[in-house]
């Protein structure tokens, strides 16, 4: 490693993301300044291994970078996390010669990668596709109605799921790299939501064509279980950890300021201590999940791992709501007002996205089937 990924992220967070975060939120616009800065620093390619010209950053380093960004701007951190999830899927799975060459282009061109795994008509089940790849000689075409492609407008390429062949059942899915200019995204509706307003998570009609070599040879179910699901949940939880850290940081500053003014009476310090404990617990959970992912290596995850990574998402998304709420209780009116240095409104709204934007009930239902598979260790 020639540079520290989390330190670069911390610098960009402080210099670029923080100053524009309120404007991004107010206007509901993409954090263009932050994305430009990440690209300019080579941060979009950090997970590409040395064999392909990249610095080969680990999931642990990227997770720490995501947390740094989230302390300043939740939307920037979420976009960066989602991009890295796509890169991880390319890095960790079997590649065609075309996809292998693309990985080198990620280093040279720093493209922003988005994801189109959901589809209208499947009820949010990403293990089901209606759309199918169609083939004409050595080219594929795809036409997909995506209810959400976060930051689709800014994306240079999209990794989309589809049935592998026109006669494949809905569960026989593959992942295909759809690149501009062969990719067109026709926006459906607008993104005016409570939180994560900078992610521009619009619906799109995705139309793409490209070489058949842009289709990953691996089954999407394997890519999901081995990489997309654990890395998504680790990096999302890292976003929420950064948000929680920002909220508790404000609460700490508030209590410290109060203690300086009236040292003999600062009751919120007790609440701050409790919140600090909860924040430690969330920090430990994220670290444990990263360690578990790294210990798994290239092994196929079993029910124990899937229960763990699913529970990470559910627990961490609840914890961020709890922690921002605790910070609000500690800061009182100073947290409630928009015109205060302790204002928590944006974090409070963003925090609720954690449980809603990827629905916890679906994840708990998936965990339930894995719990049925778990065995006593003997």
């Amino acid at each position, binding site marked *: 490693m020639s540079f520290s990924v989390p330190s670069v992220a911390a610098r960009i967070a402080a210099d670029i993301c923080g100053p524009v975060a309120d404007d991004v939120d107010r206007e509901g616009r993409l954090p263009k300044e932050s994305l430009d800065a990440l690209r300019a620093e080579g941060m979009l390619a950090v997970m590409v291994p040395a064999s392909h010209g990249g610095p080969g950053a680990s999931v642990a380093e990227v997770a720490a970078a995501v947390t740094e960004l989230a302390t300043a701007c939740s939307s920037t951190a979420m976009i960066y996390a989602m991009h890295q999830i796509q890169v991880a899927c390319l890095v960790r799975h079997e590649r065609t010669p075309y996809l292998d060459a693309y990985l080198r282009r990620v280093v040279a061109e720093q493209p922003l990668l988005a994801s189109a795994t959901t589809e209208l008509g499947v009820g949010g089940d990403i*293990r*089901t596709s209606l759309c199918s790849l169609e083939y004409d000689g050595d080219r594929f075409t795809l036409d997909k109605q995506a209810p959400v492609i976060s930051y689709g407008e800014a994306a240079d390429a999209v990794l989309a799921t589809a049935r*592998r062949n026109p006669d*494949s*059942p*809905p*569960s*026989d899915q593959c992942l295909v790299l759809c690149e501009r200019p062969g990719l067109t995204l026709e926006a459906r509706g607008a993104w005016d939501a409570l939180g994560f307003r900078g992610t521009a998570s619009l619906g799109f009609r995705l139309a793409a064509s490209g070489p058949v070599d842009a289709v990953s040879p691996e*089954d999407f*179910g*394997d890519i999901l*279980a081995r990489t997309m699901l654990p890395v998504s949940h680790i990096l999302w939880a890292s976003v929420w950890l950064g948000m929680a850290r920002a909220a508790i940081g404000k609460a700490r500053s508030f209590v410290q300021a109060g203690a300086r003014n009236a040292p003999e009476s600062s009751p919120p310090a007790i609440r701050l201590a409790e919140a600090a404990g909860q924040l430690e617990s969330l920090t430990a959970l994220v670290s444990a999940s990263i360690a578990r992912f790294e210990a798994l290596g290239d092994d*196929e*995850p*079993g*029910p*124990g791992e899937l229960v763990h990574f699913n529970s990470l998402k559910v627990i961490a998304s609840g914890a961020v709501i709890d922690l921002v709420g605790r910070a609000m209780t500690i800061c009182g009116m100073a947290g409630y007002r928009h015109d205060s240095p302790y204002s928590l409104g944006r974090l409070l709204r963003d925090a609720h996205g954690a449980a809603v934007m990827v629905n916890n009930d679906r994840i708990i239902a998936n965990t339930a*089937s*894995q719990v*049925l*598979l*778990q*065995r006593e*260790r*003997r």
Partner: protein
Amino acid sequence: MDEQIRQVLADFGRLEADVATIPDNADLYQLGLTSHASVNLMLGLEDAFDIEFPERLLRKSTFTSIASIRAALSDVLPTAASSPQS
């Protein structure tokens, strides 16, 4: 054993294809086996063969084909017969 595997697959796999004619090495996931159905398939196999799969075999790859299921069962059956359940 094969007949019994195919019966459990027919009962729990929810495949559109005729289970009797599925080749041994055909990819069941490509034939439409969902992750939810694979859980029921696994539980059905445990019931039919009166065994318990160890956690190391509870992987997506174990249930990829009739051949891989047979291999997993062969792995478990002698052990189950020779050692008492704990």
